[in-house]
């Protein structure tokens, strides 16, 4: 038996994820996190912050909240239920930073916590900044 025909067999034997159920949950939880974000933004705007500061306030609040939930071991439970619904919002980014920090502290402050804090955030920052530089070059040379 070659690996192509085995691959076929494997595909048939492997159950798919329950896509509809997963999507409904992701929609509900992801949407809810955004509504909380909107409430935070409105709160900040009412408080007299300008639009940019209100956006920053919203992100930072969500990030710290998600970080706390991660430390308490609750975010992984939300994630199990919500899937992408709690991965895609900025809270998912925060979770991806806090989870290795908590997990790898035992391996030391420098090469444990310090380096592994970036195992998922590192690539996000790298490729985000890389893309922004490319966007910037296009904007600088051609866009304006």
């Amino acid at each position: 038996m070659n690996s192509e025909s085995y691959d076929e067999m494997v595909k048939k034997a492997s159950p798919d994820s329950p896509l509809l159920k997963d999507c409904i949950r992701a929609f509900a939880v992801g949407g809810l996190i955004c509504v909380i974000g909107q409430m935070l933004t409105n709160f900040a705007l009412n408080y007299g912050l300008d639009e940019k500061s209100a956006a920053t306030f919203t992100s930072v609040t969500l990030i710290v909240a998600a970080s706390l939930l991660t430390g308490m071991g609750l975010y992984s439970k939300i994630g199990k239920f919500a899937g992408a619904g709690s991965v895609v919002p900025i809270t998912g980014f925060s979770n991806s930073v806090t989870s290795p920090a908590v997990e790898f502290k035992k391996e030391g402050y420098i090469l444990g916590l310090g380096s592994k804090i970036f195992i998922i955030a590192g690539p996000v920052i790298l490729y985000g900044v890389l893309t922004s530089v490319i966007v910037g070059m296009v904007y600088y040379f051609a866009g304006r």
Partner: protein
Amino acid sequence: MAKLTGAETVVFSKPVSITATASTVGTKEGDGPLGKLFDRVLTDNMAGEETWEAAESAIVKDDLSILFEKSGVRPDFIIGGDLQNQCCGTNYGVKDIKIPTFGIFDACASFGEALALAAIMIDSGAAENVAAEVSSHFCSAERQFRFPLELGNQRPQTSTYTVTGAGAAMVSSADRPPYITAFTAGKITDYGVNDANNMGAAMAPAAAECISSHLRDTVRDAAYYDLIVTGDLGYVGKELLLQLLKKEGIDIADNHIDCGIEIFDKASQDTHSGGSGCACSAAVFAAMLYKRLRNGELKRILFVPTGALMSPTSIQEGKNILGTAYAVAVENEVIKWNI
């Protein structure tokens, strides 16, 4: 004396007994369908230690002391393995016991390898008693092979759940059933599976090849065995195993069970394809299969721990996941082999 039969099978005509077994498992396994059968169920998977890795070693140490107590002997050697880097789970667990130890690695098939090597040592007269012992821990495995535990991600339906615990067996020259009568050593298989969330698919071909070699080498029918028990194929792997064997004209649908399916309740424990890890097959053997052999409910079984061979590096580098398996025949009487 042990004798090589066919291409890959070693048979024993002298009694090679398993005189006792011991099993220790984590909380989730304790809540599972076999919960009452284990010798010890942890109340805290950290086992009073500071790290998951240390917890696994503490489980190893505890489980071996249960084994020594139940068998009433201190073995001449320990053969042990686990999933942690460089066998640390085993080494830190046995360091205070001061018994010469062979550290082995065959991923989740390690218990099969340990039983096979122990049987050879007993048969050859190199030892009177050898402890075969393996362990795994959900948290140390998850951390090493996948993601931090607190990361909020979903596990795919094909994924298996690493069993927290240890299983051990005392292999002995004492003449008392059940006996290890033969084993078939696995060949490493590569069927092009590279999905680390589908270990059952990576291991099923190895189990199929090993079982079919065993039956061919020993000139036995699949129906000869009361049960053919694979280690941790899970639901996906079981399905594939049955299909692969059927293609070779071997039907084990009626007498096949998989330890990974037995140890958890899929519906209530959300374990997807089933349990996995070294301790999966070992703890189920120690807690359930051995007892059923002892009380005569089972007379002969073919115990086939299965292993998915890879490392975090090999996965990152995009290499395929390899499979292996050991088929160990455990029977209530000594067989006078003449094949």
